[in-house]
């Protein structure tokens, strides 16, 4: 029983890690507290709903279009909301409020067109395979394989390309990057596109399993950010570790209480880490002033 819960948790955790990485791509580098990321998570499955279920386009084309549209939305938010504010040197509070405003707009536009109820993407019950006492559905298998594949790909990219160095440089100083000839605007576009790519896939993977409504983004945002904090802010590997931890703990909690208490688990974890180990598992202590 425990092993089943653990496996479930690891599989869920892999998707959480993927989603958290997408957030980290923006936060670790540009320090933007990208609350609007929550709607990107929800946007991709709704696009899939439109193209696959409503317009009857094939599954893979519909998926591709959804991912693309989500990436475009991500870029729109960057280019029309964040970038102009950054140019004006607005404070992070102003940017955060603008991000919240975008979130409200998109959630309500979606609710306007699709309604508030939960939508199901896949009405069939997925087949499953069993290993001994453990049952893993094919959907779960897909979630795990795709997520891990993308995570590993990303970590390799981080290690062997200039992406990691540029990301760290950007976090430390925009000015220095400019001096060394790195084009910040283009790099930001790459980051937001990649972020949109990850969250689109993550959003789809979970929505295909359990459906979605316009409000699923916010609890998932909480998961993603807490994963980041637990693992260690500023380190992409941290986001990955954090995602798995949250997945496993939520799985155990769901068994002990019920699925509606998931957010409670995440919140308690957040408070514990913020009080006792704010730098996360992998992080280093920061200067205060």
């Amino acid at each position, binding site marked *: 029983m425990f092993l089943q819960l653990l496996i479930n948790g690891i599989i869920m955790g892999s998707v959480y890690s993927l989603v958290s990485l997408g957030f980290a791509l923006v936060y670790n580098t540009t320090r933007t507290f990208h609350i609007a990321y929550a709607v990107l998570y929800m946007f991709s499955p709704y696009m899939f709903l439109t193209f696959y279920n409503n317009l009857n386009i094939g599954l893979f084309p519909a998926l591709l279009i959804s991912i693309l549209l989500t990436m475009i939305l991500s870029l729109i938010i960057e280019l029309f*909301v964040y970038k102009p504010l950054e140019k004006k040197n607005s404070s992070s*509070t*102003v940017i955060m409020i603008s991000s919240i405003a*975008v979130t*409200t707009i998109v959630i*309500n536009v979606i609710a306007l067109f699709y309604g508030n109820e939960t939508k199901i993407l896949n009405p069939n019950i997925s087949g499953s395979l069993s290993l001994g006492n453990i049952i893993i559905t094919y959907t779960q298998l897909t979630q795990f394989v795709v997520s891990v594949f993308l995570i590993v790909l990303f970590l390799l990219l981080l290690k062997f390309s200039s992406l990691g160095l540029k990301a760290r440089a950007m976090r430390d100083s925009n000015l220095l990057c400019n001096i060394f000839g790195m084009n910040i605007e283009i790099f930001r576009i790459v980051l937001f596109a990649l972020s949109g790519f990850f969250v689109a896939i993550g959003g789809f993977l979970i929505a295909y399993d359990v459906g979605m409504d316009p409000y699923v983004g916010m609890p998932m945002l909480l998961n993603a950010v807490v994963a980041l904090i637990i693992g260690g802010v500023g380190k992409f590997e941290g986001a990955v570790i954090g995602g798995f931890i949250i997945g496993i703990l939520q799985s155990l909690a769901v068994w002990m209480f019920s699925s*509606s208490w998931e957010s409670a688990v995440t*919140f308690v974890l957040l*408070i514990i880490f913020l009080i006792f180990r704010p730098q996360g598992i992998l992080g280093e202590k920061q200067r205060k*002033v």
Partner: protein
Amino acid sequence: MNYFLHIIIMINIYVILTVSSNLLIGMTNLLSLGQAAFYGIGAYIAVLCLMILHLPLIPTILLVMIVTALFSLLLALPSLRLKGDYFVLATLGFQLIVFTVLYNWVSLTRGPYGVSGIPAPKLFGFIEISGVLPFLILSSILALFTIWIFYKLINSPFGRVLKGVREDEISVLSIGRSVTNYKIMVFVISSAFIGIAGFLYASYVTYIDPTSFTLDESIFILSALLIGGLGNIKGPVVGSIFVIVLPELLRFVGMPNSIAANMRQIIYGLALLLLMRYRPQGIAGVYKVK
């Protein structure tokens, strides 16, 4: 006629919500997404007082304030030491958790079924306050009381220290004032008054359920405050009037009810975006969000 009185009652409730939130967000620069959680806690505690404890009006209000304040301490103590981004996150988590509890702990709160038939509060134990006119009087008194208290707070040495915390925390520490203590005081005071708004809502509408106290509502309260403006009393009042009256105007223009709620949020979202970009002090505020 009743319709207009009803509008004014709702404005009064939101004046209390926004004027209180201003102390937190406008005077001390603590962006919080948890207002609806305290609004809801206030409402449900009011139900406890009115339906189970059968308390008269004034003890109800006092108990609501105290309990809401205690809950806010629960959130404030761990999260106020955190810097901006993380503080917002903690309030987001708190908001989600409170909603989860209100929605799922059915034996305690009747969950999604809500609580109906909330009895009228009784002033001194026998003067029943029910119906539009009495609530107009009660809500106006409470709103004016809130305005008086917060006006005095803002324009006192206490308010001056809050402005300092808003401007430059290090400078405040360097003159020996504890920034964290002030943040805690602000959090507790504003939450207590938000609780009063919850009491008013519960006893006026006589039916509450968790869906009135979601993150969406927090963002709505935030929008009202930011659109009206921060840092003074006029701003929140203007903002409250704006966000309550606008949907009614939309209805006159013929917008169907089913899309009205969503359209309202979309309009406020757009208004916020434009304001943050071009006029961060809102319509009538004095503090430009920094």
